[in-house]
């Protein structure tokens, strides 16, 4: 039975245009669409991302990842950053991924207010996502949703809980990955040393109001870091903040900006983002066809190389590769 979702009221072209104008109801509808796993929605999703991605992938908003263990203050810090960005006249889209990964479905999403409570401010848009059973990873919707947000806002911030595997996921999606550490917890230092922790672009020790213990953690982290980021051309700074006292926030905002400008100046952004796009596509292919399928297409590196050379168009690129494996057209299954 065809079921017209209550909010699928406009055509995809119109939806895309409205999103680019920053219309909130369109944005909500677009995110709902990308979340929709029905075959009937897939075609519209593909078209929407096609219309929005083009140049946006190569230019567009600054995509920032905030990660770290639960309770370190990512959301609180995010709220401070939002205020700071708003003061600087920038608009912000937020994707907050809920840490609990329930198997039976069901989730509690309650970080909105911590992150943003000014209901009159049209320059901020917040969507929560549950991790929906994806242990150790972000679910497939995040990257396309991030693309939609990036076409409407100056900054897109993604909050995830970082324990082990997960921050690798986020670092394959964001221009700047910011790891927030808890004063006095040796965990992050250990994982950094052991190479479990993907090196972030910025390290933040929050709760600096806790005093000496925070300072000590900052210097321990400094000791554990190799100064150059594996990306090249970037020294990883260690910042101290206190979200509750609003300290160190503008420094953090500055630092994020410097990193982004660094990417732009060194013309790294385009290559990086196309790499993320390739990563998303390879992950989906791997989910469906296993590593074996990815190998049949020449392996991850070859796929990435191919994606790098094409005009960005997420679902078309994905479907093209998928067709090579199945030998049939999948986009018009319904």
């Amino acid at each position, binding site marked *: *039975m065809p*079921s*017209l*979702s*209550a*909010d699928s009221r406009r055509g995809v072209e119109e939806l895309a245009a409205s999103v680019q104008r920053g219309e*909130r*109801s369109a944005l*909500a509808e677009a*995110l*709902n669409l990308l*979340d*929709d*796993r*029905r075959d*009937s*929605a897939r075609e519209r999703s593909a078209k929407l991302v096609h219309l929005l991605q083009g140049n946006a992938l190569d230019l567009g908003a600054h995509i920032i990842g905030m990660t770290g263990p639960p309770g370190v203050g990512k959301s609180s810090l995010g709220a401070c950053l939002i205020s700071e960005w708003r003061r600087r006249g920038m608009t912000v889209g937020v994707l907050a991924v809920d840490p*609990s990964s*329930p198997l*039976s*479905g*069901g*989730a*509690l*999403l*309650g970080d*909105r*207010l*911590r992150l943003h*409570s000014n*209901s*009159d401010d049209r320059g901020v*848009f*917040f*969507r*929560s996502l*549950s991790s*929906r059973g994806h242990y150790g990873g972000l679910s497939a919707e995040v990257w396309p949703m991030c693309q939609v947000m990036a076409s409407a806002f100056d900054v897109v911030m993604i909050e995830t809980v970082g324990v082990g595997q997960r921050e690798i996921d986020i670092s394959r999606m964001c221009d700047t990955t910011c790891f927030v550490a808890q004063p006095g917890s040796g965990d992050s230092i250990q994982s950094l040393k052991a190479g479990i922790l993907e090196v972030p672009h910025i390290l933040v020790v929050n709760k600096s109001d806790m005093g000496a213990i925070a300072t000590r953690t900052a210097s321990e982290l400094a000791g554990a870091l190799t100064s150059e980021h594996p990306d090249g051309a970037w020294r990883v700074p260690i910042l101290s903040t206190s979200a509750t006292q609003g300290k160190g926030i503008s420094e953090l905002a500055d630092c994020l900006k410097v990193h982004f400008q660094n990417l732009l100046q060194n013309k790294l952004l385009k290559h990086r983002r196309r790499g993320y796009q390739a990563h998303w596509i390879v992950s989906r292919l791997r989910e469906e066809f296993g590593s074996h399928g990815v190998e049949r297409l020449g392996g991850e590196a070859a796929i990435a190389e191919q994606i790098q050379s094409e005009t960005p168009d997420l679902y078309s690129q994905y479907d093209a590769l998928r067709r090579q494996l199945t030998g049939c057209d999948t986009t018009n299954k319904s």
Partner: protein
Amino acid sequence: MNNETIQRDRPWLMRTYSGHSSARASNELYRTNLSRGQTGLSVAFDLPTQTGYDSDHPLARGEVGKVGVPIDHIGDMETLFDEIPLGEMNTSMTINATAPWLLALYVAVAERQGVDPVSLQGTTQNDVLKEYLSRGTYIFPPSPSVRLTTDLILYTVEHIPKWNPTNICSYHLQEAGATPTQELAYALSSAIAILDAVRDSGQVSADRFHDVVGRISFFVNAGIRFVEETCKMRAFVQLWDELAGERYGVEDPKKRRFRYGVQVNSLGLTESQPENNVQRIVLEMLAVTLSKNARARAIQLPAWNEALGLPRPWDQQWALRMQQVLALETDILEYGDLLDGSPVIEAKVTDMIASARQEMLEIDSRGGMVACIESGYVKRELVESHTRRMLGIESGELPIVGVNCFKESAQSPLTAGDESGILHVDSTVESEQIASLKAFRTNRSEINVADALKALRAAAKHGENIMPPSIACAKAGVTTGEWSEELRQIFGEYRAPTGVDINRAQQGSSEALELTRARVQRTGEELGRPLRLLIGKPGLDGHSNGAEQIAVKGRDAGFEIVYEGIRLTPAQIARAAQEEGVHLIGLSVLSGSHLELVEAIHLELTAIGASHIPIVIGGIIPEDDAKLLVKKGLKAVFTPKDSDMNDIMDRMVDIIRETNGLEPDV
């Protein structure tokens, strides 16, 4: 038996918690109650007064005079106590975040009546800690709140020595689902947090500090398991005596005495067969009167129609009469302690003390009560206990007559009649209050007001006692909203943890839940994404139990739940619903302002292009209003009668299916 030789103890203070509409109307009510034999006053303030907003503030819309009396300024306070001699009265004020302000107004009115504040007697509840956990009328973050609490305590000990400056409350914890152990442990841990703060303030000598300990009183709950509840009272007496002696070195046994007032349990009072509530109330009253050595100093009882809406004067009179019958007709006051020496009681008390101590140690090891409020630990524990209670009702393990057993009933004559058995607050109350507030503002000296506020700000900033400048503000004609706003600017505002993120493992499962879960999942698949439900608490209402339990159950049933706690504006709710792409908005309103709030939310949703999202509501909604709301487009109205939460979940799935054009699946 020779009547003349019988020694009767003096009865406890008998109160009725009341106040509504306006200072004038409440004053009349108080005077009638006093003439009917009530021996003290217990003032209920409306929510704007409790949360520090003037009656004309946008957030006060629909709430003025609803669940209590609005007090905007000294003029209102003067009217409230018109012809009631404050020098002779014992007045209990249920006021917390704005307690220093309401006490300041009381002192100022006393002075106008020519009464020396030194002689004033009464109680300010002044326990903000439990506001974060249950009652919801907090304003500032915990640390400045504790400071305001201690300021009031320090001031009264010095200047109003017969005043009970704080009533540490376990009452509200039980109303939020607490077990007896939790009630004991959390109330005593709160007392420790406050007393430590007073001691460490450096503003009292060791001697004076013992007086402070002696002035601390408690406000306790008594539930239907009245034997256990009696034991809880005895445990309180013993634990407090020890604490005062050991932790604070108080030697005078009088100052170590556990003094407490009571309101009996209301959470267990039902909407179905409401006449049964009378039995419940009377039995619960026994718990706090039977044991002479642990007897309450003051009692207030809810009315039979507690779960229907606000009580009328007659309903309150009935509740008062229950107390009078027990105190005057029965022989309860003629004996010494009936339970002393009972090995059964002794064993139970020992047991309760041990488990309370253990939980107090847990709190201590987590940094004390304030830290445990901030981290959400205590709130989660309470939500979990309440969830267990709800599961008990659901499974029938916890029998509630008329709710999950013996449900058949003849038509009740009590709820017949035009009023449907409750008090209806006149809707003109709000505009009249606003008009009188505006008139008051034009008749005061703005210079005096500005000066008084400046002094208030300075004291708040520099850590000086807040009471003297507050009293000056009261006299200068400052309003409740102005006093609060000044402090908001300095201390900031706070949102407490919601506690709904409890462990799933605690939940248990049932066949009904499994069926619902399958439907939620299937419907989600048919609609392409998991079902999302926004649970919204609009307005100033702090009743969070229902919203929390729906959130927990909803998550277990497989919904993605967006819930952000109490006191959201209609705009915040509309916006969240849109941004989060929810399939359904579920509002929860128990404060009586549902009509105004639903209308405001409709307007907000329409303004942002999200009016297609269906809405349901739950809470204390009288039948006529329910019909009206459905007429205005709400998809369903749930009240306490709908005690089967699986059924509620199912109905929400039905509504989502229907609004999305899916065919019925069952």
